[in-house]
């Protein structure tokens, strides 16, 4: 992608029953949003091991988006609450590592909210674009002299 305008790389983890379906709905409704996100499907946001999100950042994602069912609507009853607990603790850690809040988001998007998915995508891309590249996997040059 041309660096003229920075195109952020977003890795999105969507649950199979709500947010992934919302993304499908956005498609069948031909809604348009920027092509920056790469979606990885899991059955439930509760499956999301913090290692996945850390891995995504480490491998060069400029932003990570988690999409799950609204509280109370989880296809597996409470998986999204487990996700919520991990998300907050992980968000603190990620922040301590120097990654800005807007790069790491959890959004509840139900199967019928194609329009909401679109809005979130647009908003996330814009916010991350504004923050600029993260490029975690770029080699750090080590100068040992002091």
């Amino acid at each position, binding site marked *: 992608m041309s660096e003229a305008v920075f195109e952020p790389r977003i890795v999105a983890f969507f649950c199979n029953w709500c947010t992934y379906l919302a993304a499908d709905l956005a498609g069948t409704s031909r809604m348009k949003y920027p092509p920056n996100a790469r979606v990885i499907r899991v059955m439930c946001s509760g499956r999301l091991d913090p290692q996945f999100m*850390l891995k995504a950042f480490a491998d060069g994602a400029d932003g990570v988006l988690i999409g799950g069912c609204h509280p109370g609507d989880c296809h597996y009853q409470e998986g999204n609450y487990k996700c*919520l607990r991990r998300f907050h603790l*992980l968000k*603190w*850690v990620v922040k*301590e590592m120097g*990654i800005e809040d807007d790069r790491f988001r959890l959004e509840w998007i139900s199967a019928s909210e194609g329009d909401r998915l679109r809005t979130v995508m647009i908003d996330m891309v814009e916010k991350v674009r504004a923050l600029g590249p*993260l490029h975690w996997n770029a080699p750090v040059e080590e100068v*040992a002299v*002091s």
Partner: protein
Amino acid sequence: MKPKVAFYWCASCGGCEEAVVDLAESILDVVAAVDIVLWPVALDFKKADVEAMEDGSIAAAFINGAIRTTEQEEWAHLLRRKAQTVIAFGACAQMGGIPGLANFSNRAGVFQTVYQESPSTVNAEGVLPETTHRDNGHTVTLPGFFDTVQALHQVIDVDYYIPGCPPTPQLLADAVTALLAGKLPEKGTVLAPDQALCLDCPRKDTKPERLAISEFKRPHQILIDQDKCLLTQGLLCLGPATRSGCGARCIEGNMCCTGCFGPTSRVRDYGGKVLSAIASAADSNDEDQILSILAGIPDPAGTFYRYSLPVSELQRKRL
């Protein structure tokens, strides 16, 4: 003739050396069995002597400590050349260890703290270490200091790992025995059991099947029950995520496991995994309540990456 063995220390506290000494009487068996060609903490050898050795002439080099200076890097490469087997000895060599926490900062930050801000420092002129210094005609040099601390395998190829801060003498003894018997496992193995500490925990039976933590406590805040699972007391015991093999010494001492043995072989990022387990136990579905429960965990990143920051997915803080 006896196999040559080398012990070397990089960025470490010396505790690992103690572990060797802690072999006590059995150290004599070791000495009897092997020929120690390098052990700076105990015997005097010069780098030149080692350089003079034939490549691969050392049977095994036990290197403890993380890599944070150019000198340590040089020694690591040197020993890699000379030794057939390199064993990362202890948490610092294996994962970066406590020195690895410096990756939350960088050289400038570390110097700032150590040579200027620390209360015990008197340094009005703000003199900082330099790699070369000229003083009436003479030039003195110091090793360079890296921005980022690395584990041993991030600098050289490592054959085996002995975990622990410090490792138990038992693990060392076992390793040496295996070495002598030529019975070492597959390259890259961590020479300790591959299950989590809970398996050996003397208190495991007191842990309920449905643990739910509504408030995290810190050791000084409560009177710790000698027999009850520490997590059930609201204490941040990292045993469930930490490799066993230490004999649960901290637990015996009525203290939480802080994770010095690192993760099991199935886990890539110790901190990420342990925080997942801990957060999952937070006893609420209400966002604000969840936040206030988790807020009871002091310095999450420092706590979960206490020994493993340099080998974590993110490796260091972005500055």
